[in-house]
């Protein structure tokens, strides 16, 4: 489905309108993040979540559950948190379709390489990586263009996303 599919746009607008109407009928109800915003955040690498929407999302478990479903549905790959017995930091995660690796940079110990390798050379590559630790908020990183089956990013080793990816309690979605 193309990104600007008019039927989908209409459906998203209808969902937003329905949510807005319900809020109007419930005086005093907290303002919620629009579903269309969540949807764009999940599927569009160019879309940034504004501060106000980020606050609404953080305060709204139902919206977080919506985002959770959006990310998992039709995900390119979903990598669950690792077994309880796993300890130490994670350097490699793999599924049947993709492998993620973390390799510290020798050039700069404060930086770390995140490698994404697709196992099917014919697959349409994912464009975003989402990670969430222990049920916390989803973090997002936009993936660069793949060269063949591989893409590589350089992250600050102490960044939120690098810390999360090294944590066995983190689940990861490629979309």
């Amino acid at each position, binding site marked *: 489905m193309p990104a600007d599919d008019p039927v989908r746009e209409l459906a998203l607008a209808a969902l937003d309108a329905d949510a807005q109407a319900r809020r109007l009928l419930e005086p005093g109800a907290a303002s919620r993040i629009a579903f269309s915003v969540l949807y764009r955040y999940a599927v569009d690498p160019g879309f940034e979540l504004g501060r106000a929407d980020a606050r609404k999302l953080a305060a709204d478990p139902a919206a977080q559950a919506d985002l959770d479903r959006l990310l998992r549905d039709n995900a390119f790959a979903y990598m669950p948190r690792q077994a309880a017995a796993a300890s130490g930091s994670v350097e490699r995660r793999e599924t049947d379709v993709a492998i993620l690796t973390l390799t510290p*940079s020798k050039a700069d110990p404060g*930086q770390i390489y995140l490698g994404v390798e697709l196992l099917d050379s014919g697959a349409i590559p994912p464009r975003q990586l989402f990670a969430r630790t222990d049920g916390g908020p989803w973090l997002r990183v936009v993936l660069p263009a793949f060269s063949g089956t591989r893409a*590589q990013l350089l992250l600050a080793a102490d960044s939120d996303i690098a810390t999360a990816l090294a944590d066995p309690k983190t689940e990861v979605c490629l979309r």
Partner: protein
Amino acid sequence: MSGMTVHILTTEGPVAIQRITEEDNAVQSVICLDGLTQILPISPHYEAFVRRPAGVIERMTGHGAYRMDVSARIDEGRSWQLAAFLAHAARQQGGGQDVTVFATGEVDRDLAVRRVEHVEQKLQALTRHLAEFGVAPERAVIMVPEGSGTVPEQIAGIPVCAVADIGAALALAELAPLASAPAKDPREEKIDAPRRRNVPFTLLIGAALIAAALFWVSGDFARWSALMQQGRLLELEQDLARAETDGFGQLRAGAYLKWLGLSASDAPAPALQGALYTAADAAQCTEPSAQVKRPLHPVYKDADSICRVEVRAIGDAATVHIGRLAYWPTGLGNADRPSRVMRGSQETSGRTWVLAFDEKPQPGAALRLVVISGAVDINGPQPWYQDLLSAPLSGPAFDAAKARLQRFGFTVTALDWRRE
């Protein structure tokens, strides 16, 4: 780098190569902006320029992954290659002399310097840069590819030199020639040749041939060993197959495989332990307390519903065990592909596959577990799984797939299960 300073000529002005650092061979070579985490989009070209078999840098240095930091963005093209090669050569030679180099040109795999576009604009941008910042002209050189059209003899007192190959570029940068680089000045050969006629000619030729053969063989061995260490088995297999297309290549590939067989013994097979979790009917599979754990035998004849299966591969700590568990609801190999293929979870004592059946096994359903044991994890595409997971264990297709892995010292262990 201390000593030589190298700049890439661009239409926006010279871009300094600030630093080149070796990286772990598992990562791809990258060009980064000014020490930041920003990887420039031309990095895949740099990776190809560095890594063998096509890359020329690994051929020179023996290492296949680098990070190069530059002072400004370079967004496209390959004209950075001449400057990058010189910077790598200077690093290899301990930093080089105190020379400032401005260079543009593409370097091919024979180390010839190829022409690039926009040389005139790049030199104009350099002129503006030098007018503002200046460089001591007596210790600087500007290099452009031979045949770049009309170029000035000098800019701000710095000579502009046309180069045809890396040998000439290294000489201009006051760097030592490469062992396999073209001679930097053909006149030297003419002068030297008559003197050497006094040495027994056949002895020299023999020594040269032995040296060349050793260089030739060791280069392939190093590449194949690196692929093996990185677990890039399919690439290794393809590389060996390419080598085997000619007589000498066949010898080299055969020698490598012999060496591999001698240097590493076959990996020990793991012990496989499995269990089935069954319940009186499928609905009770959601209740752990209603499930019964049974040992996994090759054939299941009971009427109870099968909720899930767990299999562990237990081996010694020095061996890497990888594998796949395939679920065939209508029987082994009776569909285009298995309905589920699982990689298993990695644990310190081995690997475990846990499959909770969404589609409960009916009579005829089958599982095939294949464990590949070896010294390294296997990376990249693994086409042998297609036959290993679907072909009968005693059939030629399974044996052929198994033989592909055994050739490289891997041991294949398989387990079949079915519901009668």
